[in-house]
């Protein structure tokens, strides 16, 4: 993990939500991640794993209260975003770092035209630009995402779901951000529309050389879009590596369980092998490995001691006592 070259580097980030009813909910725990320039890193995990909270942490939009960043740093181009003032963050957000949300229906303002919504970011981040110039840029952005420019004065409800998500993408990319955070960008869309949007995102990302943090639970989307993948469980990285490491040589039992749970559209029909149980309550995480209660390989050490993220090979790391041991035996034997 080279720290100097990364565009984004998250170090020991912890985020908690504290409420009177639920107590202290530890959503993100000591999380460290690096994102290189031009790469797409997939954040994969199930509901409640903390994926969206990580994204909100980077954007500086963790709702407070009840959310609180309790420790860590988020370096973007060498500067710690967590030490920036609100005003400084506002300049970065939407300009250098922008975000695509899951549900385009709620991300767009229903009472403003789509043109006004694209122009809004441009006005905010390019104060020197004239009215006409901004308007032209907005039309151009619409056309970039495949919507005819003459529809600029229409309202969100006049567009279909797939087109609304295109508009959200146009807004996010209007200022050519260096980092794009896409939080389940196609989950609310039908598969044929999803295919169009993924194709569009890949194309634009290549043209603008944007780095992307893609949050998803869909391993199919990950296979298609990501260079590297981080598997998130109970607010921490349990396995991280290149897409090839994760898809071909996964070593964490949770990652293996995720793949075994998937019904397949190709190949043999076999009985699914689900992971037993459910994710631990984030307000009451177990002392040892958070996955241990559901893990078929768990031993005493797993119940007692929290595992560290240990190297498997090259860039491939895994947070599992057993997998790391096996790897060492493998090396000793080989």
């Amino acid at each position, binding site marked *: 993990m080279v720290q100097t070259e990364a565009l984004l580097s998250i170090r020991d980030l912890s985020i908690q939500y504290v409420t009177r009813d639920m107590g202290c909910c530890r959503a993100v725990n000591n999380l460290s991640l690096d994102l290189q320039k031009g790469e797409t890193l997939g954040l994969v995990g*199930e*509901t409640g794993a903390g994926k969206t909270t990580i994204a909100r942490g980077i954007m500086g939009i963790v709702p407070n209260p009840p959310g609180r960043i309790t420790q860590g740093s988020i370096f973007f181009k060498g500067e710690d975003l967590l030490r920036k003032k609100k005003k400084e963050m506002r300049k970065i957000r939407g300009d250098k770092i922008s975000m695509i949300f899951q549900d385009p229906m709620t991300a767009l303002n229903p009472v403003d035209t789509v043109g006004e919504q694209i122009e809004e970011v441009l006005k905010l981040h390019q104060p020197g630009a004239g009215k006409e110039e901004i308007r032209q840029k907005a039309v151009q952005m619409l056309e970039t995402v495949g919507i005819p420019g003459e529809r600029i004065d229409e309202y969100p409800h006049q567009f*279909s*779901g797939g087109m609304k998500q295109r508009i959200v993408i146009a807004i996010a990319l209007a200022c050519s951000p260096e980092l794009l955070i896409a939080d389940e960008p196609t989950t609310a869309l*039908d*598969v*044929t*529309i*999803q*295919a*169009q949007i*993924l*194709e569009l995102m890949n194309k634009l990302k290549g043209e603008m050389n944007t780095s992307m943090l893609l949050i998803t*639970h*869909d*391993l*199919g*989307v*990950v*296979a*298609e879009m990501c260079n590297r993948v981080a598997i998130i469980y109970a607010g921490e990285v349990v396995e991280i590596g290149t*897409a*090839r490491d994760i*898809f*071909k040589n996964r070593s964490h039992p949770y990652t293996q*369980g*995720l*793949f*075994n*749970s*998937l*019904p*397949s*559209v*190709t190949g043999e*029909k076999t*009985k*699914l*092998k*689900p*992971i*037993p149980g*459910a*994710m631990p309550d984030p307000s009451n995480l177990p002392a040892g490995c958070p996955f241990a209660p559901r893990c078929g390989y768990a031993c005493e050490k797993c119940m007692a001691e929290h595992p560290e993220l240990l190297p498997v090979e090259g860039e491939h790391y895994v947070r599992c006592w057993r997998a790391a041991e096996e790897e060492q035996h493998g090396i000793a034997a080989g």
Partner: protein
Amino acid sequence: MELLRVEHLKKYFETPRGLLHAVDDLSFTISQRQTLGVVGESGCGKSTLGRLLLHLIDNTSGKIIFDGEDISNISDAKRRELCKRMQMIFQDPFASIDPRKTVSQTIAEPLRVFHLGSDREISEKVAEMMDLVGISPRIRNAYPHELDGGRRQRVGIARALILRPEFVVCDEPVSALDVSIQAQIINLMLELQESLGLTYIFITHDMSVVRHVSDNILVMYLGQVVETANSEDIFASPLHPYTQALLSAVPVPDIDHKTERIILRGEITSPINPKHGCRFASRCIYAKERCFHEDPALTEVTGGHCAACHFVKEINGL
């Protein structure tokens, strides 16, 4: 043996802009102990179909023949009786169960509605059902908000099965669940089908799930069936251009998998006052003049494999 037969079923909704053809002339049959998968994208009418079959809404025309009897025009009293034989599992178990009832009260409710048994008998039946669907007796007095998605769906399944129905409409039963939990519920539903001899209609937008659970599949597009065949044939050799595009669009979780993806262009035709012609024509890469003004009929192309496309033979080189 045939359990359900649907003939020319239609459901039109009146809207301010005209008549919305939600389900437009569907005909199919389901045999006992089989699963018919119904797939399609949002707005294709698959949920409306499920509701029509259970009589939760009235149909506009057509017949629904259940176990030899036409149930499309029956009295409310008779419809209530049918509840014992036909049940539904919904997508969002949190929205479909009463937040103020405990797990055991929710599962017992159908028995109480029909006055089936004394309190003791009911509680025995509930305990038995909880065991069958894998709900621990420990949480019998828990409320829905205390349960995770997987357990809630187990409660939904237990409530649907407590009357021991023969026929169950499953409307996106695993779509709201995470993959590891989804697999638990799919396995449970298949085991229950086997042990209780259930017949399922499995409505979903997820192609990999439908392949896993179904014997036969209906592919719907804007209220109509565009293709139907047994599950293997649909996935091995899809005939209709829409099914081909739909299957090619599914992202495969394998980095070495390369598909020729068919990206659909064009906008979806409105289901309100649809004109004559194939409803998929506006997005179809093979569409010709004829497709825009002549309705294609669902015809058998190869043994038991039907498609509704004028040029199905040319497209597939048959």
